[in-house]
């Protein structure tokens, strides 16, 4: 037996959490910056895909309005999107800035107000009294399964309320 007792071994088990905190902060920063948390004018719709769609490049000076066309009842699955009840025109509605408009006439009333935001400087040639068209740019964002009749109604309501600058939204397929 030894005369001397072995020296007490003091083990330090403290975990250094500083790198963990660093990484967590970076992850948090990425999620906060990358996340789309803003309350936008656009509602969530599955836009139709089109590779020839041009990039959205909005001029801040031009007043604009986004007409969304989305289902009243959200689809339960992709198969549900193909059912006649989902595709029926009664299952679809218009929305501008989060406010829903169930039919053509409700939309028309709102678009008449939108059209008044800005008028063109030059009147329509050959009109007496001079008729000024609206300078507001309208984007129609319709779900890919929305019936074409809804988009036709949106365009007709725009025409009725002197809005003629219209764009239709499409999603661009991801590039490799």
């Amino acid at each position, binding site marked *: 037996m030894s005369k001397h007792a072995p020296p007490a071994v003091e083990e330090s088990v403290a975990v250094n959490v500083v790198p963990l905190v660093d990484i*967590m902060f970076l992850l948090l920063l990425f999620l906060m910056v990358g996340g789309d948390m803003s309350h936008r004018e656009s509602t969530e719709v599955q836009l139709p895909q089109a590779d020839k769609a041009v990039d959205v490049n909005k001029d801040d000076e031009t007043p604009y309005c986004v007409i969304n066309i989305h289902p009243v009842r959200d689809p339960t699955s992709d198969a549900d999107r193909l059912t*006649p009840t989902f595709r029926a025109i009664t299952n679809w509605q218009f929305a501008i800035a989060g406010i829903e408009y169930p039919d053509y006439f409700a939309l028309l009333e709102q678009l008449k107000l939108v059209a008044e935001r800005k008028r063109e400087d030059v009147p329509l040639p050959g009109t007496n009294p001079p008729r000024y068209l609206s300078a507001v740019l309208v984007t129609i964002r319709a779900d890919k399964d929305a019936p074409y009749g809804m988009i036709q109604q949106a365009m007709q309501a725009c025409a009725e309320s002197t809005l003629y600058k219209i764009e239709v939204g499409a999603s661009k397929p991801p590039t490799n």
Partner: protein
Amino acid sequence: MAGSQDPNDNPMAINVVPLVDIIFCLCVFFMCSFKFRQLEGKFDSWLPKDKGSEGLPSLELISEVRVALMWDEATQVLTRKMGVRSIPQDEELQRSILEAHQAWVQKGKPDAPVTIDGDARIPWGEVITVVNIIKRCGIEKIEFAMGAPPKKPGSK
């Protein structure tokens, strides 16, 4: 970024466990609500200033390429037609549109539009597919055929 390992450098230890807890909670919240932004594009479809859905068509010969989109409600199937010919394939439709448009160009009407005449029940995605095919042909003038706007119930 990370601090020194030597405890003598910073004798006053800070308890970072609550900080880590909170950051974990924030990370979980942001990860659950995270959504990738959809890459959006657009097609300009400005309405004509001088004509609309009202009025009768003029008597001059209509110079256009017309693509008809028909919908069978019973089978939920779309039929694309040019004239009497049914064209289900995208490539064939593109070729047919290009040929028909070239025929108008040779007749001295390069501005002949391509008109999409679609049933109100067809899915919007199918219309955009045709618009995309027309754009691939390099044709910019696209028209949508429409009926009269809805009349308010009770109005004449």
